[in-house]
């Protein structure tokens, strides 16, 4: 078992949650999402994002609208659907529970 795999698995679960969270504040263009995730060091290359966005959109959590761009092709602006909003609220709750649980467990372990 390699630590890289475990790390990748951990990130994988969190990534979707984080993408939805970035959109909670409003509409975003993929590059904006990427720069936020890059700042947080969650992802490094943009390529990772596109399939995820498409999947979330296909699952009905996201929707987008086209907007003309001055520098190139029209852009897709993503936002949360109502389903996505609910989904995110649930994830928020789960995350709080999880992180509290993780903290509690790891702290106990640390004390021992």
């Amino acid at each position, binding site marked *: 078992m390699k630590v890289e795999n475990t790390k*990748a698995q951990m*990130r994988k679960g969190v990534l979707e949650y984080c993408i939805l969270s970035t959109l909670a504040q409003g509409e975003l263009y993929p590059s904006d999402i990427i720069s936020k995730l890059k700042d947080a060091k969650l992802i490094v290359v943009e390529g990772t994002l596109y399939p995820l966005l498409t999947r979330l959109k296909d699952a009905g959590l996201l929707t987008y609208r086209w907007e003309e761009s001055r520098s190139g092709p029209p852009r897709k602006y993503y936002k949360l659907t109502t389903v996505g909003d609910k989904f995110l609220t649930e994830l928020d709750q789960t995350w709080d529970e999880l992180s509290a649980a993780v903290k509690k467990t790891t702290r106990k372990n640390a004390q021992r």
Partner: protein
Amino acid sequence: MKKTLTANISGTVFHIEEDAYDMLQRYLGSIRAQFGGTAGRDEIMADIEARIAELFNERLDGKRQVVSLTDVEHVMSVMGQPEDFADGDAGDDAPPAGPEQAGPQQRKYKRFFRDPDDKWVGGVLGGLAAYIGMDPVWVRVAMLILVWPTGGVLVAMYILLWILVPKAESAADLLQMRGEAVTVENIKRIFEESGERLKKGSEQMASEARDLGKEWGPKGRAWSHEAGQTARRTGRDMGNVIVKVIGILFIITGIGFLMSLITGAIGLSAAAWSGGWSAGNVGALDLGGLLFQSRDHAVYLTLACFLVLAIPVIGLIIAGIRLLMDTRTPRWLGWTLSFTWLASLIAAIVIGAGLANDFRQRARNRTEIPIMQPAGTTLLLDVIGTPGTYSYNWTFDDGDFDWEDEGFMLEDGRVRAPWVEVDVQRSPDTLFHVIAIRTARGANTKEAALRAEHITYPFQQHGDSLMLSNDFTFPSDDKFRAQDVDFTIQVPVGRSIHFTPGARMIIYDVDNVTNTLDSEMIDRTWTMTERGLQDMNAPAPRSEEQHDNIPAPPDTVKAPSPIAAVVWQKPAKRRTPPRAVRPNTANVARTDMHASTTTVEARPHMMIPNLLDLVIRQVH
């Protein structure tokens, strides 16, 4: 001149150089293949193309017309490797990757892995064969033939490679090892091949294969990602095995040097701390304090010298690791090492120059010591008993000279140095004279003269007995600046001097007509003649010419050759010839000296100068 093509990317028309176009084409092809039959593939591709078009626009910024290879590389580093597009396997921490997989010219890049599929021992030679594109059989044959004449070096190298070279663990590794391009298609092929092989096995094997498959998918991508980066670094100059071997040699040499340096440093620091003040010995640290402005200076200089020597060695090791592992040295490390090296060098030069400056001028202080003329015709030369026994030996073992100097001491803020030398010359008048010559060095003559004046030496006269010491002292605050004391005893013609056995320690290269060595001059009375000192009791040689031909009497050895002189010196070469003598023997009994029974070991006195002297005399 480059050919350009026109491409429509997401509704925008770009002029694109041909090589750039090829690379982009391959890149998009790989990504498309990555998604395979994923639902919404076309939509994702459209999104990606739109983004690429946008990135190109940003890059060109209206100033340039044509998309070049570097633009495509930039886009690929922003977007990531095809493997990064895999849904779910997102965002590992690796830095943005280069464009190697897709570029047509990168196809041949290889990396040295151990081959787990084709191995006898560790798979090193199998991997090497794959790397250099040879049949493993020939590599193994070459190894077996060369093992004997190279005497184990190859074996050691094999073991080192076994440890250092990673085993090809993933499909990507195997591809890289064989030099096939790490494309999604190739990985899939390898993966399928493996799957195929495993399916042929039992049910258990099949299930293992499925597990393996699950494991291998993401692993393969991760590995190819990493391998791709490595290939990019090695890339341009197609580093080969020779580079690796050189790297290993660098590392081995470097570690060897470093080890000997560290051993030396440990030895020195051990010397620094042992030999305290109380033991009468002077540790290296004390010696450093005597030599330099402070002990700290000595430590700094040692440290600086160590770093000046060690840093290039460390550099060598790093270079070796770089060659071997294809890793890039962090820039700060290079800077830090260069800076430290330069600083050490400057420090060493500054401290060293300061020290050298302090030795620049020499002062010589000549003082005649007033003595009472002896009642008889003979003056006795004896030594003042020194506290404790010490030896001061030149030893000559195994062709090496060792200087054993245990008499050098620090006590009460003064340094005691045991290298007084006494010479005997003809007096210009009818009186005995004793002249003390104190010398020292300093940054200027004034300092040097002051230091020379600070030197003190014991002197006693008891009747006809003149007593000098082998030691002189100077304040340790003066530092060691080549302080020295030499005495010249002037004997008038017709008068004599007798060397007691104790005087053996202090007389140095006393000229005499029979060329008798110092060690044989003791315990005898020498009379000053017009020609020089002569022992009147010894059977006188008939003439100078005949002297060479007759067998030399035991006490008037005229060595026929330096080698004979060495043989002849043999008794003196023993480390501690226990030639304990009492200063108060019959010869000095009539003096009023205290009955001191201090034991002093005879000093096989300065054999080297004597040897040289002999050679010179032979030449004459």
